[in-house]
């Protein structure tokens, strides 16, 4: 169903707001390969939302260039550009006077699709984001916050844009709903393979969601741009180290699932040993071991049968890599 | 109906050439008739307005307490207000005549009614504008219901109350000009009087009109200053 993703390049982009001395964004350069889930994270005042809105030209930049698949975004009209970019914001911004179905079908309608096609696409998308067919006839005011954000996502995906911009989309949701939507967005991203730029101030969310993370500091200066694992292993400077927290080793362990590791073979007698699922993270496994006072743990596969043993030392070794 | 015992009309026999030609504005006439026509009308107008707004404010304030205490009176008061709102002032003055006669009381009753329509909803909105978390915090600090009302809700309502007063004062000044259809009182009277003539005397219309508009703008300015003094935290204009 995907029309593919697009590569996005920030090339020394600088933005200054009139009336303010400090730049909101200073010479930002990022290469975001097609299909990457890129998270912009940083403290408020780091210019991450500014950077995001430059891409669909809701804000204009002063210097540098932004290219999508090699083409400068300045070459297109704003309308043309934006039709090819899905946009999701924290407060969703659903049109309260339109039904859910009409909200999702807005861009296809602007693009002149026929009724049948719009209807089919809407149904497909609602299912994709986990809403029911009957929801299409309801109004935004009748939905919960989480449901509304699902609609926002469906609406952004409607015309199958290669790029998706998300500005703190889960910021206003309760932790449980947020967690569920985070998981689903990860799954969805694997399914539809878009280039996503996702803004958040929550480092946990960044680590959970991102293929790559760009950490911005005050004044819109790029502090580090790398994979979550690399950032946690080698923070570029004290600012990044402080921002990702002193428990970064544990956060790093949380990136690894037990099933992905080279486990040691099962010992002959393994009855009394601690057990954890292969889908659990190394972080959880270490926690269990510390709690029980043991130094190894049996990993069980999806069927419940043990597949190997994780010694505590393996976790330590993992962090040295 | 225009009452007949009005102030001095321009005496064309001994008037200046400006008055005789009915030019746009004759300062000499305005100066000569300030004391017998314009000033009395202005004074009456201020009196009509002040009494109406004063009584209207007192009643609205009382109604506000009632509505605060008993929520279900809001709806009936609102409906009565909405109905009253659609009654044209010209008609209301006449409709009150069978009850209170062709008197100042009739004029005041009508004017008070219009101020209520404006003041009460504004006051109630103001009283309800206190954010729920602020009220929770006040309750959490152990303030009693009446303490919350007087120390939190009413102070926070001040900007809305003054905004309501601004509208009420300006409207009352405007509507009071129509009282001249009933009584020879206020700034409307010189205007109606001039309009009786097939060739309406321009200076009189402009002078009285300017005084009415000036009075309204002056009162509005004074209330804006008052609000700034009473509620320095409310920076943005609410009107």
């Amino acid at each position: 169903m995907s029309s593919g993703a697009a590569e996005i390049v920030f090339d020394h982009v600088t933005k200054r707001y009139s009336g303010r001395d400090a730049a909101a964004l200073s010479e930002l350069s990022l290469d975001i390969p097609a299909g990457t889930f890129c998270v912009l994270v940083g403290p408020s005042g780091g210019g991450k939302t500014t950077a995001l809105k430059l891409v669909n030209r809701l804000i204009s930049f002063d210097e540098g260039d932004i290219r999508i698949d090699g083409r400068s975004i300045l070459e297109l009209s704003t309308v043309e550009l934006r039709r090819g970019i899905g946009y999701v914001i924290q407060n969703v911004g659903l049109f309260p006077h339109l039904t859910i179905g009409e909200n999702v079908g807005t861009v296809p309608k602007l693009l002149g699709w026929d009724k049948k096609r719009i209807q089919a696409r809407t149904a497909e998308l609602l299912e994709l984001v986990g809403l029911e067919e009957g929801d299409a006839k309801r109004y935004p005011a009748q939905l919960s916050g989480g449901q509304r954000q699902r609609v926002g996502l469906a609406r952004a995906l409607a015309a199958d844009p290669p790029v998706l911009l998300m500005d703190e989309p889960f910021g206003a949701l309760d932790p449980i709903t947020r967690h569920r939507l985070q998981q689903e967005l990860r799954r969805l991203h694997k399914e539809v393979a878009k280039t996503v730029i996702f803004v958040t101030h929550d480092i946990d969310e960044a680590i959970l969601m991102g293929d790559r993370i760009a950490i911005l500091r005050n004044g819109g200066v790029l502090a580090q741009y790398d994979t979550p694992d690399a950032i946690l292993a080698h923070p570029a400077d004290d600012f990044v180290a402080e921002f990702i927290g002193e428990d970064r080793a544990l956060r790093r362990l949380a990136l690894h699932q037990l099933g992905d590791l080279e486990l040691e073979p099962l010992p002959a007698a393994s009855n009394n040993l601690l057990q954890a699922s292969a889908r659990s993270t190394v972080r959880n496994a270490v926690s269990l071991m510390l709690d029980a006072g043991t130094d190894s743990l049996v990993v069980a596969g999806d069927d419940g049968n043990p597949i190997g043993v994780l010694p505590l030392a393996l976790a330590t070794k993992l962090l040295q890599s | 109906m225009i009452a007949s015992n009005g102030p001095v009309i321009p005496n064309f026999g001994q008037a200046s050439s400006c008055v005789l030609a009915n030019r746009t504005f004759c300062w000499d006439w305005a100066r000569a008739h300030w004391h017998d026509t314009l000033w009395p009308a202005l004074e009456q107008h201020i009196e009509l307005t002040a009494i109406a707004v004063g009584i209207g404010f007192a009643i609205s304030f009382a109604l506000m307490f009632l509505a605060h205490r008993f929520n279900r009176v809001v709806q009936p008061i609102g409906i009565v207000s909405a109905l009253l709102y659609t009654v044209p002032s010209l008609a209301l003055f006449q409709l009150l005549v069978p009850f209170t006669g062709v008197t100042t009381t009739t004029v005041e009753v009508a004017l008070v009614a219009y101020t209520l329509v404006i003041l009460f909803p504004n006051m109630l909105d103001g009283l309800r504008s206190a954010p729920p978390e602020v009220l929770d915090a006040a309750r959490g600090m152990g303030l009693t219901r009446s303490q919350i009302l007087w120390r939190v809700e009413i102070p926070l309502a001040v900007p809305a109350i003054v905004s309501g007063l601004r509208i009420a004062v300006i409207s009352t000044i405007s509507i009071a000009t129509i009282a001249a259809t009933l009584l020879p009182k206020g700034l409307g009277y010189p205007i109606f009087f001039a309009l009786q003539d097939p060739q309406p005397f321009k200076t009189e219309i402009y002078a009285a009109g300017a005084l009415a508009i000036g009075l309204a703008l002056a009162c509005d300015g004074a209330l804006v200053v008052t609000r700034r003094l009473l509620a320095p935290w409310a920076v943005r204009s609410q009107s």
Partner: protein
Amino acid sequence: MIVADSFHPGTFVDALRFIGNHPTFLAHKAAEQMELTLAALAIAMLIALPVGIVLGHRHRGANLAIGASIIGRALPSVVLIGAFLTVLGIGFVNNMVALAVLATGPLLTNAYLAIEGVDRDVVEAARGMGMSGAQVLRLVELPLGLPLLFTGIRIAAVTVVATAPIAAVAGGGGLGDVIVNQASYRLSGVLGAAICVMALSAGVWLALLALQRALTPSGIRVGRVPTVGKLVKEEQ
């Protein structure tokens, strides 16, 4: 306050009898008044609505748009009618212009606030998905601003209906002719006409309220109860 002295409940009976006895005359006068009202309202809408909508869409000119109704309120109808009469002469045009000026304030202010006040997130989402300025206005801002826009029209309409009788003092005709001419029609005629004016005004108010309800997109109506207080917050 000498209520008892001047209270004649019979006067109202006489007034109703007057209405019963002169239905065509009063209908003719009412029609005259409605003609003036509609003309004034149409002119005011033609000028004020586009200006208010464009200012609101651009988020510009707040002072002008809001100041319009403050100044509008400060201009007594009598003064306007009198002043325009000296320029335009007695008759329909003078009264129409004066009433149109009165209607401009609430129309302009409400049109501005209606469009300007549309949720910024919704507008940003609309722009973000590639709507042009005109599409944002037509597909998002106007439908969402419609209730408030209509409130302005309703206030303006009632203001004009309620003020139109005053135009009688400047040759405007209509029911005001009867109200300001007690010498010819006696108190019963004056009261009868006043009752008609009141009914006309209430009728216009209710009709526009019903029209507004019918035009409001149902998504906005869901889960929102307008308070009566809001409806009467503006004045005539």
